[in-house]
């Protein structure tokens, strides 16, 4: 591996990320999958970085799941997205930050389509106007929430309580980064580092002391794939995808996986359990699984947030091995203690405090 070559590519793929006044839109599914993540993002942005982040209660699903499952027609999707833009415009924001990778990909795709086919944009504006009476401005800056954390990775590192370093050995933790397919595969220029060698998560990990693993199946889908998972009979394909990834990363002995997509941590996490149930196979060291984190969770851990407040007890593959390696100060007995959880999140569970 020639690092200079990678750096050259990373330099080629840099994007503009707004530095304040974000209009944040949540993911449909993340709050169920890893409920602490979005809350942690808001806390980091507002409390640690002192940035303005706005959320709107009328924001809806972008219909990306329906769109990618061939259920919702593209024009409908575009009109729904136009409404999101209209609400943002009404709120006086222009820096759109979706929490969901698919939303990010969809917004990017729609903006690009409108750029190349202005008549479509015109038609959608008309449809939105007819349906809701709303008008909109296109976002001035579109960045995924992980782009924003990437932008402030150094600031976070400066405030960090822990480093992604094995406390006992002093070695950096070996981290697998998994990027959601819709982040840059469709529009490589819209992702930090492009599609082949994405840097958005790698940049965070490097900054926070870890070491990124480049394994052969890094490009492979986590297995969510929408249609593959939604129909039960197809789930065999979904899990086969994840398995292929695990088998490919296993020889590198990763300590953890970091992701930036709603579906990926879900599937990489839960399928490890299912594979173990089906085949009795685990891919981590000492007969354990490989803990899977969202980038917000990792940022929260680095900043010294309580693991249980971050929602790590919601992971099916236990996170404790990583916590122990980093040397996080946590109380194992409080893992399922419901009482401590609201103390962290009640403020940020509300919109626009």
């Amino acid at each position, binding site marked *: 591996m020639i690092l200079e070559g990678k750096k050259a590519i990373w330099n080629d793929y840099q994007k503009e990320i707004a530095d304040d006044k974000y209009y944040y839109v949540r993911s449909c599914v993340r709050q169920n999958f890893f409920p602490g993540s979005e809350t942690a993002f808001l806390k980091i942005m507002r409390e640690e970085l002192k940035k303005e982040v706005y959320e709107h209660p009328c924001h809806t699903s972008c219909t990306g799941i329906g769109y990618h499952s061939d259920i919702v027609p593209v024009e409908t999707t575009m009109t729904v997205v136009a409404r999101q833009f209209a609400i943002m415009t009404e709120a006086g924001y222009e820096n759109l930050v979706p929490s969901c990778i698919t939303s990010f990909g969809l917004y990017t795709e729609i903006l690009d389509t409108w750029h190349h086919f202005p008549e479509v944009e015109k038609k959608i504006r008309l449809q939105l106007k007819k349906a809701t009476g709303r008008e909109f401005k296109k976002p001035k800056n579109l960045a995924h929430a992980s782009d924003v954390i990437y932008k402030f990775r150094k600031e976070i590192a400066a405030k960090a309580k822990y480093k992604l370093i094995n406390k006992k050995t002093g070695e950096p933790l070996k981290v697998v980064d998994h990027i959601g397919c819709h982040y840059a595969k469709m529009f490589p220029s819209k992702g930090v580092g492009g599609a082949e060698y994405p840097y958005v998560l790698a940049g965070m990990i490097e900054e926070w002391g870890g070491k990124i693993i480049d394994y052969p199946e890094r490009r492979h889908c986590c297995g969510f794939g929408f249609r593959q998972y939604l129909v*039960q009979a197809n*789930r065999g394909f979904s*899990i086969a995808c994840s398995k*292929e990834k695990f088998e490919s990363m296993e020889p590198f002995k990763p300590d953890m996986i970091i992701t930036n997509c709603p579906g990926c941590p879900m599937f990489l996490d839960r399928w490890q359990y299912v594979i173990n149930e089906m085949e009795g196979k685990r891919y981590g060291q000492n007969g354990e699984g490989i803990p899977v984190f969202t980038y917000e969770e990792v940022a929260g851990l680095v900043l010294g947030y309580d693991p249980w407040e971050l929602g790590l007890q919601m992971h099916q593959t236990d996170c404790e091995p990583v916590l122990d390696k980093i040397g996080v100060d946590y109380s194992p007995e409080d893992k399922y203690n419901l009482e401590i959880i609201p103390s962290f999140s009640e403020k940020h569970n509300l919109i626009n405090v």
Partner: protein
Amino acid sequence: MDKFGFTISAGRQIDYDSNNRRLAEYIFEKEPSFRLCIECGGCSATCTTANFTGFSLRELHILIKRGENDQVRQNLNKCMLCGKCTLVCPRGVNTRNIVVLAKNAFQKSDEYEI
């Protein structure tokens, strides 16, 4: 396992490195013209067997070369050895001998330990 209502799907990918290609090596050694195939498909087009069922000698050659021996074994015996393929082959591949060698190899051993 039943409790999930699905199992882990087997991939269709040819894993070249873990496949056993002794059969191919054996045929390369005994019938060097095996190397000369340019995959034109002339053999499959004229094939007597292919007139009746799904059988492609061209594909069979590829599968032997890749070490996909199970698939080879499943299809090999459909060949009637009539020899039309040898006649139409533009590269002079001794197609019949390849089939005969593969048959012999399978008869010698199930594990293609030739």
